């Protein structure tokens, strides 16, 4: 009896959970879809500036990219003279736009700028979305004193048209990998600038493989900072170990060499199997010939 009651309770709890869960989903489905537009500002090596627009549609807990949607991006005000680009989102709901050189005079005027994103739905203009950034720059320097190798990143921002240190900015300092991710130069994954806008890391990674000259690309990168956006700067330095081609197996009989350098064991294995099977098959063909010959022989 007790067991029955327990099972009943468990069943009730399970059904309640399922119903609650379903109600949750039902509520999600009822929610109005919410359009989300994100704009990321990039400043690479203090000279290439571009924007990445990301368009998303949030329905309940579900977030989906908005594909093939057109947007217009302006600098500071919605005017023809301030037009940056007209863009169309890709399959991931993203699109890149480069700030054109014609807007240099507007860009140089102020320390802070606003990017305005507008779009049209069924011929009607949607409410513009605005994104503010402060003009900033980043520098990377290295030093090698008595074998102690340091990487220093300095972040500056503009205030009233003057460059001042940007303190308390989180950034990554490290080596750029081939897939564009960053291997931290020190022990921590990220570092924070001090009141002078400086962050210094001791580079303690020895025997890092570089290119054929031992070059490593050091990078300092600020990602998605609310005020500064995305900044990155690179510096190439020969602090790595030169990568030498491994020719130790060149001309050897290996699985990856040319067909003239096949390993003997593989040749023996492959040929003995092939010869074994095919000699059996040839024998069987001879048996067929034998059967044929028997038909023209006299009995007895």
């Amino acid at each position, binding site marked *: 009896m007790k067991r029955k009651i327990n099972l009943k309770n468990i069943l009730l709890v399970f059904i309640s959970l399922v119903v609650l869960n379903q109600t949750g989903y039902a509520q999600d489905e009822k929610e109005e879809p919410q359009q989300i537009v994100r704009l990321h500002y990039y400043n690479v090596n203090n000279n290439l500036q571009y924007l990445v627009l990301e368009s998303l549609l949030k329905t309940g807990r579900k977030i989906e990219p908005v594909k093939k949607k057109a947007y217009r991006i302006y600098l500071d005000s919605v005017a023809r003279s301030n037009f940056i680009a007209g863009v169309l989102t*890709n399959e991931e709901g993203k699109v890149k736009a480069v700030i054109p050189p014609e807007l240099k005079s507007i860009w140089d005027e102020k320390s802070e700028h606003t990017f305005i994103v507008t779009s049209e739905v069924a011929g009607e203009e949607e409410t513009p979305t605005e994104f503010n950034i402060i003009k900033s720059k980043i520098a990377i320097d290295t030093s090698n004193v008595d074998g102690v190798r340091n990487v220093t990143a300095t972040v500056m921002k503009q205030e009233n048209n003057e460059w001042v240190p940007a303190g308390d900015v989180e950034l990554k300092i490290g080596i750029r990998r081939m897939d564009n991710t960053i291997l931290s130069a020190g022990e921590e994954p990220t570092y924070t600038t001090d009141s002078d806008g400086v962050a210094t890391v001791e580079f303690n990674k020895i025997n890092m493989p570089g290119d054929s000259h031992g070059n490593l690309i050091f990078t300092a990168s600020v990602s998605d900072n609310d005020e500064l956006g995305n900044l990155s700067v690179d510096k190439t330095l020969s602090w790595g170990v030169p990568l030498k081609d491994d020719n130790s197996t060149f001309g050897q009989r290996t699985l990856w060499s040319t067909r003239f350098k096949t390993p003997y064991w593989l040749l023996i294995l492959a040929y003995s199997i092939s010869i074994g099977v095919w000699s059996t098959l040839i024998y069987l063909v001879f048996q067929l010939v034998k059967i044929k010959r028997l038909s*023209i022989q006299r*009995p007895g």
Partner: protein
Amino acid sequence: MNTENLKISTVENLITTPPKSKAKSDEIIRDLLPQKFGRQGMIWVAVLTAICCVGAFAYYRQLKHGLVVTNMRDYVSWGIYISNFVFFVAISLVGSLITAIFRLSNVKWSTPLTRIAEIIAVSAIVFASLIIIVDMGRPERLLNLFLHGRIQSPILWDVIVIGTYFFISVLLLYFPLLPDFKILIRFKEKTGKKLNRLYRFQGSFWKGTKEQFKISDKSINILCITIIPVAFCIHTVTSWLFATTYRPGWDSTNFGAYFISGAFLVGAGGVVVAMYMFRRAYRLEKYITDMHFEKMGRMVVLLAFLYLYFNINEYLIPAFKMKKMEAHHLTELFAGEYAPLFWFTIFIGMILPVIILLFKKGRKPKPAFIAGVMVVVGAWFKRYLIVTPTLLNPLLPMQNVPENFKHYFPSWEEWAIAMGSLSGALLLITLFARIYPIIPIHETIEEQNKTDEKISLVE
């Protein structure tokens, strides 16, 4: 050279000696001689030919414009063609299961199914070879594969082993046909002059002497022994095309066994489907009985369980660890873009046929046929899932490539060629059944006589 004086041991002996047996033998011959297509048969052949023609036109377009007419790009370079190839290789394995393994195990009930299995094997291996050529951008360079091939490459092993398997399958089809040629030639009026000429060309030398039978039986036994390791090789090597490549979903030591178990399953499913179709089309209820469906049904259940076991190994263990390189691929299969297809292959291709065939009623011809169709269709999509999603999950991220490189759905040319090849294989099987007895006549008579002898001894 008086052939009339030859010592004849078989059919004529069997037909002439006991009158009761002669009547039965005549009935068997009458039932099993190749029959002309009826209306339905003609429609079936016409439909298959039409699909083949569309496929041929699509291939002409591919030859003319290049592989750009397909939707295969830098990442998915093995698309529906290679899935189709793996499917054909898989289904061809049935020849070794039904003919060789059953024959060597002295399983007598499989006699009416041996030729069906062998013709499926030969047709499938022919089209497996053709589809590989279709997948080549420059088919005129095929010879270079042999002239400049590296024995280190599993691709060359595959070429060698497919050629060998094809040759063995043809021999295994031909040797047991020899005694039937003698019967076919004798019944000239029923088979027609043209076919008779073909039978004479292929088997007029068969007189049915003891020596001939001795050599033939010995040869068939040797073939049965040889075909098993070669059949295992063909599918293991095909699996190594994938497993020797360092990719999520393919990086497995289990792949050879996984592929072989899947191949046996689809092969057995294919035989069940063919059994039902031939039984209906040629009214062979006396020869392909409910007992055959019962036994083949059980066989399919066993093989489906075996394949499910390997599937669990193949997916559950990587999913348990969820290594970063495997995670995206597995998520795509379990809950992503390929989830509907993945769960379709698991449920329709394995679980549902098992549920149907576990019950005695489910092993009756019709439900067994439905289960067989499910197995075959599920198996075809399963091969697609083995090939494509992995290619869309390379170890290095896809960067700065056109959007269409990141997705794959076959173009109409690819579909037409794939469907054309499947129709071609079916057409080959159909035409074979029109020309040759789909159930071995001589072996059936021999077994009937043995049964009669046993009955008379008991009486």
